[in-house]
């Protein structure tokens, strides 16, 4: 029993980096942040334990308004992405064949070869008052003056949905591809119509993929910073922006840490609820993404 068996040694060698990674980059930093969120500045460089940061959140309607707003918009973006992506995922997985399919798959990946910044820049060029689309509207006589398409909540949604489509498409395509055509044929052969097949066969089969896609998209939108900040209008508060502001422009790490924790809590809660409702398991769903 002195010395390690090769098997044990291998296990430890594999475990060490994994544990270091999780401990040093995930667990401890977040614990640290938790601790920061539980203190209050009482003087220059002096802090005391307090729930003040959390109290502030609940007492200040601004903050929880932003919080709710972010969550709601993220949910809407998730649903939109699902609805928009589903027919396309279906077409790629089930209808298109050979070259066409490969081409469409490549095209879905295309936007994600460019960074989020580039995509946002593209939307700016397209949507701004003097941009391409308002110009086009004017040209075809739809409007007399340039319309401002930027700085609306709808604009944020467009940007968010656009940025997250891939993360919806890929799990959906994967899930739909594993659906055996003969199941659909069998259901049809037994007298099912399209809607019914969708409801009884396709959606139950694709549920894990749908869950995975929705979780990914929801998390990405909830945690997005760039799109809401750049495309959003004068009232568009995004919770990550609030966190950023607290940390960076207000130097109020305590408040920022509390907000970050609240956001983490919110996302975990919503993901958990989503999984519960659809009867999926976190590990299974995430492994499909």
């Amino acid at each position, binding site marked *: 029993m002195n010395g390690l068996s090769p098997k044990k040694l291998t296990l430890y060698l594999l475990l060490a980096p994994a544990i270091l990674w999780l401990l040093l980059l995930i667990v401890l930093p977040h614990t640290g942040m938790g601790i920061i969120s539980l203190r209050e500045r009482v003087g*220059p460089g002096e802090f005391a334990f307090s729930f003040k940061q959390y109290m502030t959140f609940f007492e200040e309607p601004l903050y929880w308004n932003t919080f709710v707003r972010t969550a709601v918009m993220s949910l809407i973006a998730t649903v939109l992405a699902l609805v928009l992506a589903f027919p396309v995922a279906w077409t790629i997985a089930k209808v298109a064949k050979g070259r066409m399919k490969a081409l469409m798959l490549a095209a879905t990946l295309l936007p994600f070869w460019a960074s989020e910044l580039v995509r946002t820049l593209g939307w700016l060029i397209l949507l701004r008052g*003097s941009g391409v689309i308002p110009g086009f509207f004017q040209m075809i006589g739809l409007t007399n003056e340039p319309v*401002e398409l930027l*700085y609306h909540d709808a604009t944020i949604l467009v940007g968010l949905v656009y940025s997250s489509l891939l993360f919806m498409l890929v799990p959906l395509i994967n899930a739909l591809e594993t659906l055996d055509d003969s199941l659909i044929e069998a259901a049809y052969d037994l007298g099912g119509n399209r809607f019914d097949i969708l409801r009884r066969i396709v959606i139950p089969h694709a549920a894990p993929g749908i869950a995975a896609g929705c979780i990914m998209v929801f998390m990405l939108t909830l945690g997005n910073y760039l799109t809401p900040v750049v495309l959003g209008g*004068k009232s568009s*508060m995004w919770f990550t922006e*609030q966190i950023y502001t*607290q940390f*960076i422009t207000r130097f109020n790490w305590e408040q920022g840490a509390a907000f970050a924790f609240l956001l983490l809590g919110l996302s975990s809660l919503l993901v958990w609820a989503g999984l519960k409702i659809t009867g999926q398991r976190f590990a299974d769903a995430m492994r499909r993404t």
Partner: protein
Amino acid sequence: DDQVLRLLTWADYAPQAVVDQFKKETGITVEVTLSNNEEMISKLRATGGAGFDLVNPSQDRITGPAKEFGIYQPIDLKKVKVANFIPSMLESTKKVTGLDGKVYGVPLFWGTDGLVVNSAKSKAADYSDLCKAEYAGKTAVRLKRPTLIGQAFAMGKDPFKAYANPKQYEAIMNAAGDKLIACKKNLKYFWESKDQLLNDIRNGEVVAAQMWDAGGWKLNTENAAIKFVAPKSGALGWVDTFAIPSKAKNVDAAYKWINFISRPDVAAKVAKSAGSFTAIKGAENYMDAVMKKQLAESFPPAAMKNIKWYPAIPAGLEEIDGKVLDKIKAAN
């Protein structure tokens, strides 16, 4: 290493040509990171004053963070060619950035916050004019503390005087905030990026906005109808400084850069790129005639006297501003 100067500064304060020239003269490469006042402080706070050798914060933003976070080291004035600076400016900066008998900043540029107005389409003359219904949807301000301060002055209050009295300050700021909330419908947006605003003024989407002078004059060169106007209640004057982070690695290079920039010819180049005025003696000799004219037009002597210079901000005040700003943003 010794051959690199890590500079954290504003856009346009280190134009490529000047960086190249510095390298040629001293062999030191300058790594430029663009930033603004808040981010400079955040960055340095996170690094504990390391990571950069030289920064250019505004003079009112030095003592607070220096005290709270210890991110700056005192300037050794012996290593600075003080003769290059306009004495009055140097003295006032020394005062504003002084803490426990030590000086933490030397001035570089100064400028003002005021109004950029498309005179063909708008007659706005004070901050409050931005809220006039006739310009609905065509004005813009930044959602930052200068906006609040400006509004406060426009309302006839003096927030600078209230710096020492947080209660009073908070009341002033809340009042300014309410004013802006009422005004919000009138605004096209709260502008975030300089470029965004300049573009929209250029193509007429915005006719009047709160902005600093350099942007206004830049547009003025392109289109004479666009002017920088010192508001009736007074333009807000700021001074950007050199400050050295507490854990700067290449302090020598930092002084070299300070002394390099404070050479009148170089200062003028930078001034041209930034569109601001220097605190350097004799730089005006190298300065653009156009800019001089623009300055004269925007600042008649009375307006010049009426400039409200930012005093140093005591720590904690910004939390008050922050809440007000958040409230404005959230309001409908």
